[in-house]
């Protein structure tokens, strides 16, 4: 019997016909002015309304027509309040986690998409923290709707949101081990048992050995 799987995949167990992801490392520099679109206005307004701008904002990135402000975690709540009250970013559309295992010292990122209905503008805040000290202050006091979103990001990535009114797992069972959306978490990492028979994890199942 051949050691190759049913679909002719060898080595990776990937039967999709897709050889594997090639990741280009994320750019680390700041964008140069002028940023274009309304982004210069946003940056100017924030600088005017918030004197600690240069200290709190690590870098300003404009990529693919979208503006991202990288904020130091200690200043996140301050900056959020200014953005909400002075720059009229009334809505925070949640928080997403991103895991960059290769960026040592800043492995975990939290990304907050903001929306200003008043000005029809969208920007993004990004906070990065090291894996061994994954603490970010909660913005639930600024945008209450982020409550469940922060719980989800905690659940999936293990980022701890300090000051959250009740930070518990939201989607996974309370006693779950690990955080499933991290890059180092295996796909289908657990075998499923049904009526006594076990089904192997998908990455093992697909080669039909």
């Amino acid at each position, binding site marked *: 019997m051949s050691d190759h799987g049913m679909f002719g995949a060898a080595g990776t167990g*990937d039967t*999709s*016909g*897709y050889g594997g*992801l090639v990741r280009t490392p994320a750019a680390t520099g700041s964008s140069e002015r002028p940023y274009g679109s309304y982004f210069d206005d946003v940056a100017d307004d924030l600088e005017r309304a918030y004197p600690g701008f240069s200290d709190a904002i690590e870098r300003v990135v404009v990529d*693919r*027509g979208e503006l991202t402000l990288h904020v130091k975690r200690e200043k996140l709540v301050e900056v959020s309040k200014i953005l909400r009250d002075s720059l009229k970013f*009334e*809505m*925070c*559309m*949640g928080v997403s986690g991103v895991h960059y295992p290769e960026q040592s010292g800043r492995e975990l990122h939290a990304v907050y998409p903001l929306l200003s*209905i008043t000005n*029809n503008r*969208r920007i993004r805040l990004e906070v990065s923290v090291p894996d061994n000290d994954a603490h970010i202050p909660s913005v639930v006091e600024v*945008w*209450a*709707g*982020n409550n469940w979103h922060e719980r989800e990001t905690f659940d*999936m990535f293990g980022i701890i949101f300090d000051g959250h009114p*009740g930070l518990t797992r*939201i*989607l*996974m*069972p309370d006693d779950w081990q690990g955080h*499933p*959306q991290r*890059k180092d*978490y295996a*796909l289908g990492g657990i075998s499923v048992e049904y009526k006594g028979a076990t089904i192997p994890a998908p*990455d093992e199942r697909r080669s039909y050995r």
Partner: protein
Amino acid sequence: MTTFIDPYSSSRETTEGTVFSVTGGDWNELVTEIGATKEERIVVNMGPQHPSTHGVLRLVLELEGETVTEVRCGIGYLHTGIEKNIEYRSWTQGVTFVTRMDYLSPLFNETAYCLATEKLLGITNDVPERASAIRVLMMELNRISSHMVALGTGALELGAITPMFFAFRERERVLDIFEMISGLRMNMAYIRPGGVQQDLPAGATQKIRETVKEMRKAFKDNATLLIGNSIWMKRTEGIGYLDLAGCTTLGITGPVLRSTGLLGIFVRLNHIAVTKIMILMLLQQIHAMCTVDS
């Protein structure tokens, strides 16, 4: 001394107070027993039960008399790990996953995913205008079918069964169009990065035109059936008050946000690859809304 334990309605003492277990039985006995306790504040575990079958909802309610003072929600194990799966797939294969995220609006999921993918790959401007138009067309049809389910099942849960039959009839019409165009009624993975899976087949435009005509008539029936029903109106109008500030802080958009009085259709003209004709149509629509509102 022997203690009788009623298997359907028993109580036991814990550090948190008396715990009553109710599994469908003698309510009179339970009410008498609860009535004997001094405390007004009781904690009730409601559920797990399913308003939808996937992921059961459990509510832990704190009651003061008949007022709910606090609620904790267990929303069930709904996460399907789609992001993780897509890490191991190509961009095109991802569509098959995201179309299932909300099975009532598969084309919206696909479009959102494809627009993001195209942006990441830098091919946004290479998408043919016809493909963009087909995307918007399909999404609008999908919006109708999705709203029909919402209205139909919404009425059903408030005790009215006829609106559901009417609404699902309209939904079927839309699904027939989807089947004709993509081959599938739901989860069709029709919209792909770079365009759509295939062009509209012969006769599709004609069928859409006919269906739209039929649906216009049927919508009136649907509307009358709901708005004309005083029970439906009493159970939906003025219920669950949420003002503009509440909506913005909770990140609520769509019809609920608009119900607070915020004007108009909130669309990102700059983001969705709409054609010039669509922008014109949209402006007409906004104009019509403003005229009605004022």
